[in-house]
């Protein structure tokens, strides 16, 4: 009977924790449903794979490229549309995309802080000027 106050306090704490996503938002509600504003390359229309595949599975492709290029020495990649690319993160991917304005924006948004690409690779400085902002459709 004397403990009821503690039980109710515990329940209140539990409710606060469970509903955290509902009250902890620091972003205005209308901005919540916006996806990250990605800067897409202007010099290229096509990627090495369709957009839907790249969005969900680019990490698998990158890992396979690493396996084949670094460990087996096969650097030639024939894309889905018949175009031939060099299996290279620095030359092919970062030749068009910018790390800060493309990779990092989604990765920060989705809380995927893991990838260790940048332990070895960095953003080549040459192509940054060639990119102008264009929002994702």
């Amino acid at each position: 009977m004397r403990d009821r106050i503690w039980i109710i306090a515990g329940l209140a704490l539990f409710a606060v924790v469970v509903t955290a996503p509902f009250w902890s938002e620091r972003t205005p509600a209308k901005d919540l449903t916006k996806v990250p504003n990605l800067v897409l390359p202007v010099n290229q229309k096509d990627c090495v794979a369709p957009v839907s595949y790249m969005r969900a599975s680019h990490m698998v492709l990158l890992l396979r490229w690493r396996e084949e290029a670094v460990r087996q020495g096969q650097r030639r990649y024939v894309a889905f549309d018949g175009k031939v690319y060099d299996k290279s993160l620095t030359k092919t991917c970062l030749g068009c995309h910018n790390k800060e304005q493309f990779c990092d924006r989604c990765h920060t948004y989705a809380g995927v802080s893991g990838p260790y690409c940048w332990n070895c690779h960095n953003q080549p400085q040459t192509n940054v000027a060639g990119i102008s902002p264009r929002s994702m459709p």
Partner: protein
Amino acid sequence: MNALYSVLVVLALVLAGLAGGRVEAGRAVLTLAVPYAALAIFLVGFFARVLRWAWVPVPFHIPTTCGQQKALAWIKPSKVDNPSSRWGVFARMAAEILLFRSLFRNNRARMAEKRLILGESKYLWLGALAFHWALLLIQLRHLRLFIEPVPAWIDGLERLDSFFQVGAPQIYLSDVIVLAALAYLLYRRFRDPAVRFISLFTDYFALFLLLGVAVSGVLMRYFVRVDILSVKQFALSLAAFHPIDPSTLNPLFLAHLLLVCTLAAYFPFSKLMHMGGVFLSPTRNLANDSRRRRHVNPWNYPVKKHTYAEWEEEFRDKLKAAGIPLEADDAGNARTN
């Protein structure tokens, strides 16, 4: 049979999620009605259940003692396993909730060469501990989908969980552990005929439902990868009460969502309520001081008593005449032999 029925129910839920994800009306129900309804049922049901328990009277301290009680000064008391103070109770509750102290005490009796052998049995404790901690970590990791911007500590948890950097997407240790632990807990129910005999539908259903949630999540991360951006967009829109058009969501995600919602809605009506109930275990959360402190039953009413002394006084003459020895002499003083 119980196991089979619960598998069938979970499979039906998965199919409902997959099928519902392919038609517009199904998507609308699965992404709007179901999550809010499940959360409401979970919260209201959880509160109702715990508040009902809060009104159950606990007049006396009834701790099960698992160590030496505090007695004479020269006898060493077991302060945590048989607490006599509030801090001792706090430590015992912490050990129970965080480390599953009671399960650690589990033992097993078996016959070998016509002799009874009692031994320790830690596998249930290990499996349960691994499962619960992995599940907690998984739930905390999921907050990255509900909170924008993602707090640094959630990123830290994610890095810790993918510590070994195996593959891409990197394998989470908690995913491996939760699947292994659930598999063991299920195997445990099937292996021992005695445990199998006492296993009910709800025992299997909880396990298979959790397995369904874990397997669909693992599939979504490592095998049938879904677009995480649309998932986060959807989760944020749910949290902001501005649900978006769910047409970009993968049916597998909707199956995962339906399983999670089922788990949440089923929670208050099932044995899973031990989550709240563990805090209210009277044998764990009360100090063993029933000999040192007088606990008065709060709803005691005055009882009409007729003591032996009064009874003897009432029938004194008759007792005397019959030659029955009396406890008090004529002046009312107790006789000392």
